[in-house]
């Protein structure tokens, strides 16, 4: 299976271990990722908060580059995914806007490339049975709560992901790796990621609540698929309530016996190695 691949800015810096683990797991599962040629930033929250046209034009350039290839685009970052989906929705539904914005692009925009999440690709295209068959080290003793956050899911008519109030794909991937996925009511609550730099005091409280609720659900870690949630949960959780957070692809690589997890865990702010060692997973 071939996909266009848009890593986005975070996966080259603060979300480095996410980028590396997505790429390694994809390769091991037989997916071929083609990084979009000379891609640029999606504009994230800052563009849509201050300039609507800019927030459509920035993803439009990348969508047009992808349209030339004719492959579905895998986007591991929830924020980029959300901005691509929103821009595509606006361009495909508003003729005047489409005419103005696409006139300034080098490539022809057709709006055909499907924007897809690696969660969905691994869960649906690869499938849980195949994932199970690739597990060499069951993640026994690991009790994650799946944390989806906002941007994969909402607004639900545009994101077209899965049940916006009770998504299950991450939970099911975790179960297929042999982990004991814990159920909780906070999987889609906002962590405040877009305000983590500018309003860190508020955000610490939001993250603290998520950590307390994860503990109450009997979890010993959180699992996420968003570099902004990860940076936020990994940095802003204070005191004894804090739990380690993993990217779901790091745990897939660990269960599949791929080389990399130890290095990636070393990049976390909150060290997950004591937990991993106590469960003899490495």
């Amino acid at each position: 299976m071939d996909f266009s691949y848009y890593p986005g800015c975070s996966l080259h810096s603060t979300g480095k271990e996410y980028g590396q683990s997505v790429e390694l797991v994809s390769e091991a599962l037989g997916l071929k990722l083609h990084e979009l040629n000379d891609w640029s930033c999606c504009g994230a929250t800052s563009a849509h908060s201050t300039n609507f046209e800019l927030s459509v034009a920035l993803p439009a350039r990348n969508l047009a580059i992808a349209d030339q290839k004719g492959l579905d685009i895998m986007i591991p970052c929830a924020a980029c995914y959300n901005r691509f989906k929103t821009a595509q929705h606006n361009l495909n539904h508003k003729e005047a806007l489409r005419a103005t914005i696409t006139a300034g692009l080098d490539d022809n925009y057709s709006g055909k490339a499907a924007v897809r999440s690696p969660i969905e690709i691994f869960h649906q295209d690869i499938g849980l049975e195949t994932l199970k068959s690739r597990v060499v080290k069951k993640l026994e003793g690991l009790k994650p709560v799946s944390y989806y956050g906002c941007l994969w899911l909402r607004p639900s008519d545009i994101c077209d992901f899965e049940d916006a109030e009770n998504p299950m794909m991450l939970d099911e991937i975790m179960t297929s790796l042999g982990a004991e996925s814990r159920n909780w009511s906070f999987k889609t609550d906002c962590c405040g990621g877009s305000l983590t730099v500018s309003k860190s005091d508020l955000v610490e409280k939001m993250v603290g609540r998520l950590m307390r609720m994860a503990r109450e659900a009997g979890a010993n870690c959180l699992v996420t698929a968003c570099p902004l949630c990860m940076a936020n949960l990994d940095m802003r959780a204070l005191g004894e309530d804090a739990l380690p957070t993993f990217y779901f692809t790091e745990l897939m690589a660990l269960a599949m016996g791929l080389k990399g997890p130890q290095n990636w865990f070393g990049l976390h702010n909150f060290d997950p190695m004591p937990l991993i060692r106590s469960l003899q997973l490495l």
Partner: protein
Amino acid sequence: MGSFLDDVNQRIDGVDIQNCYHCQKCTSGCPMAQVMDFKPNEIIRMVQAGRKDALLRSSAIWLCASCETCVTRCPNAVDIPRLIDVLREMSLEAGVVPQEREVVQFHESFLGTVKRGGRVNEPLMIVSFKIKTGTYFNDVIVGLKMFMKGKLSLFSPRTKNMQAIRRIFRSTAKS
């Protein structure tokens, strides 16, 4: 020129906000409502009442985390996050000094690095934000830790076709 309500609806270019019947589902599920000066459903009512100045000066429009919970749960599909983005743009266009200045300064720093390199360079973005806000000592330890781990590279790859990026910023710039 139409009323404030007409202007807002026109810019939203979707469901008219008068469809709100104030069930307050939006405010109940809003993670930021407790720190906002006006709650999401109050913002809708204020637009209808023409309270433009109060809204453009409010902290609420900048504290919204854009989590999109409200619009997902709204029984009438009123797009409050889009409404708030419209109010943010109107506030910037009117030259209002925002109550939550550092939120706006963050967006300026973020888009500034995109404009210069086509992609976000996180260390340069943070330095620009700190210069704008004077908050030099927040997050220094965690920042250094990330730098030492190679997660904040000063030389992350940029977009090569900068002409295309400049064209996007120029053609969407507000006069």
